[in-house]
């Protein structure tokens, strides 16, 4: 079969041509051959067993799947994994120090009761770390605006805002 015939044959069977991607996930280089339909979120959860990032809506509307891509926060459900070739992803799993010491933001979420069920929390924390790094945690209003992409069904918003204010002060000191 020619390459075109092979592609047509795969398509007829409901399969896509695999695409090779090599990316860095939490500091480790990973190479995979993936269906181009795969989202970064599914790549992390289904292929790499990193289940920290959560699937809430799968349409960019809730923020539960927030991770960092080349140091910037994104929603991984709307990122086709093929577009992360050659790029670096960081997930909640790599936020604490290797010795287990929590990141100041993780510590603050516990101290401020910034969660109930916890489903939105990995996304909230990854977004919150970026919010501080971007310089968008200057006031309550600014935190609320720049954290609006993370929905919490349990309504832990008040705790989230105070956790970020607390952690921001510590992150700026380190």
């Amino acid at each position, binding site marked *: 079969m020619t390459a075109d015939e092979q592609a047509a044959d795969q398509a007829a069977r409901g399969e896509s041509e695999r695409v090779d991607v090599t990316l860095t996930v939490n500091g480790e280089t990973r190479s995979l051959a993936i269906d181009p*339909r795969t989202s970064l979120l599914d790549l992390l959860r289904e292929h790499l067993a990193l289940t920290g990032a959560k699937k809430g809506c799968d349409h960019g509307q809730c923020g539960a799947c927030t991770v960092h891509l080349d140091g910037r926060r*994104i929603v991984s459900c709307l990122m086709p994994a093929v*577009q992360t070739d050659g790029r670096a992803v960081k997930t909640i799993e790599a936020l604490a120090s290797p010795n287990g010491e929590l990141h100041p933001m993780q510590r603050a979420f516990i101290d401020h009761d910034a969660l109930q069920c916890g489903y939105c929390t990995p996304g909230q924390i990854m977004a919150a770390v970026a919010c501080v790094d971007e310089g968008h945690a200057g006031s309550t209003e600014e935190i609320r*605006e720049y954290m609006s992409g993370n929905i919490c069904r349990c309504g832990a918003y008040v705790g989230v805002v105070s956790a970020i204010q607390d952690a921001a002060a510590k992150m700026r000191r380190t």
Partner: protein
Amino acid sequence: MQTFSYTRAETVEDAVRSVAGAGPRTCFIAGGTTLYDLMKLNLETPNKIVDITGLRDLNHIDAGGHSELVFGALARMSDVAAHPQIADEYPAISESLWRAASQQLRNVATLGGNLLQRTRCVYFRGGEPFACNKRDPGSGCAAQQGNDRGHALLGGSSSCVAVYPGDLAVALVAFDAKIDVLGVTGERTIAVEALHREPGTSPNVETTLKSGELILRVRVPKTTMGRASTYHKIRDRESYAFALASAAVALDMDGDTVRDARIAIGGLATRPWRARAAEQVLAGKTLSQRTARQAGDAALHEAKPGRNNSFRIELGARTVADALMIARQRA
């Protein structure tokens, strides 16, 4: 989701060649936050996708030129919003970006893709069970028999009343911005105001772009009116929602008198809507609460309400009036 093949364009010419003439099921992908979202809903079913995000020469943000601001089509919403000179000299443009979507989306979404985002009409997005002339030409319009609370008051037709949901294009229309596009026969320039079509009898045709035309850049003529501008956006919640009504306004003031005003409205029409009648109401007048409100009324003068959205006539008029008073403070 449909299966598709995926390729990366190396040059702009390469990108155009791969898409033009390849049929309607071949398309560009930039940030993917519209396209991939709609693919998950099976509303976009491309069989070939050409990734343009590797085209490095389309990433630039150039505010330093004499006569215009130039944004590459792949400039990210978050980067343009945060550009200090844009935030300072063209607050309406910066606000139209940071008041849209979320920071996570803005870090990925591009200006070119933003202009071409598709409607959020729930009957369009809801798929199969609903009649929708945009999705399935000739099937009808479920919105006009259903809940049209969020639908357009301006520019609609009996075929479709879907709102153009983007914010940036509204600000760009107020500033007479243009885009340069590249097609197989070369480059041409289109006013942003001439990019989006009203639905008429063919709501499935949304823009004046030809197949395979690639947006290269957005150009905004420089104006001192930029500083006295705002993008005022009213939503069901304070942040992270599409506009129920919005207004991009810019003013040129001589003391309390309006020398020139630019007014465009969003969230209310089937395309970004320049409100020239409202601009004329203000020209040469003293700007006050009263004249601002008159301009707001003029902007909505031709509004045709449906079943559930007539409250947005008053809301739209007030949004324009409030935007004018905010811009006034900056003059």
